[in-house]
């Protein structure tokens, strides 16, 4: 096994990829933020345009790379490249978006092999203001496709929530052994 491994963070614009990576990274995350040219789609000042990158080192010199996909759909050609060789994927859903269940379908469709092998965890954010769809609704969408994954409500501004996501991901990976 090589000593560099990757966890991918993906999800729509503003879902919290950069925030999650920053919570875990021991180096200041490399962000390629640019002024958001699409503030009507999502109102935040900056957005990631190429990728996010953070990392933490392991004993014995290994390293876990934390990579975030750019949120704007026009960069979706990069997703496959970024996912290649990843241990697993954290999919961040923003429950305040117009159709979070459609977002789920889109991303699970893109990363289907990961989803089917249990190498993915779904995090639902902003549930404090947007209770619907319910966590169970996401589970239903996955179950209709014969997929069972952890769907966990998470506020990635809290490091503990991000750790729970990683924990669920690792637990699933352990079961593939």
């Amino acid at each position: 096994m090589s000593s560099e491994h990757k966890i991918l963070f993906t999800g729509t614009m503003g879902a919290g990829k950069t925030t999650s990576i920053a919570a875990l990274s021991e180096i200041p995350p490399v962000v390629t933020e640019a002024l958001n040219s699409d503030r009507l789609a999502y109102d935040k000042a900056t957005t990631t345009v190429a990728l996010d990158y953070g990392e933490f080192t392991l004993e014995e010199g290994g390293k876990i790379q934390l990579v975030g996909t750019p949120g704007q759909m026009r960069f979706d050609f990069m997703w496959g490249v970024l996912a290649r060789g990843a241990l697993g994927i954290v999919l961040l859903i923003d429950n305040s978006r117009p159709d979070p269940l459609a977002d789920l379908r889109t991303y699970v469709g893109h990363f289907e092999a990961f989803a089917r092998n249990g190498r993915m965890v779904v995090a639902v954010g902003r549930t404090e203001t947007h209770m619907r769809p319910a966590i169970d609704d996401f589970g239903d969408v996955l179950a209709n496709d014969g997929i069972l994954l952890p769907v966990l409500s998470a506020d990635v501004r809290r490091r503990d929530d991000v750790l729970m996501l990683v924990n669920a991901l690792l637990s699933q990976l352990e079961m593939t052994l």
Partner: protein
Amino acid sequence: MNRTVNAPGLTDKEVMLIKSYLTLLPGKTRDDWTYLDSGVADAEIVPAGREPRPGTRVVIAYGDDNAAGPTLCPPLRIAGVIGALDRASARLQGEAAEATSPMVAEVRAAMPSDPATLARRLRAWPQDQTRLLLSDGTLRIEADRQLQRYRASQPLSAVPLSQSGWTEARSAPGELAHEGALTELLWRAGVADAQVDPGFYRLRRWPDFGRLPHRPSFVKLAAYFARHGSSPWAAAKAVLVPQPDVDAFLGGCVMAGFATRLDQPPAQVEPRPAQGADAGLRRLLTTVRRRLGLAA
């Protein structure tokens, strides 16, 4: 809905800009917003370091991207104002949903001090006819074939409770917070009771560990039961978790509908011969856990 907003802490120029945006907004925001020159508004735009007026229901943090809740960042642009007001609307609406669902508080208040007793009582009733009744802060469990009776009683005073039943509650608007509280109630009861009938179980949904109280071993157990139909006993051996943890986990899962009992034993899975790459991955995962302080 008509809502009011104000921003007494901003400069005159900023206030003027906001007022002029508001005149352009009707139809573009979820609610209709007007500027309130004096008094307490539904939402107040508050610059960092200032306190909102007492009684303000929603604070829009100005120039503080890290604040919890709605934020607005200078320079003031119309899209930013729309976004902030819509998030304020969501807050106000959430508040309303919570308010019309006093049952959430009631369920919590009624949470029996001895959830195991509740669990035993729940298990004793025929599932599809069991109803959880709440009135005046007391929790009652009743069974009745005339489900309609309960549906027609006080709004939210009766909630279907059986494993398949509780999902029914979702179809009624405004009951989601309530449903969440019920799931939590069932989960807690089942975990505390820690009784599972002998048999084989499989996970059908992961419990939402972002919300439901759990023991560290539960995450592993969920991953295990998601992959394998298994007896509680075999699970304890496979995952190296104490039997009482497995029983508590399954007790909660079965009670809240996250796991189902299998009609027949699952096909035996051949243990795979350990491969070199697997051993490497196992070591890696252990190291990552240690590095992040996650219990193995």
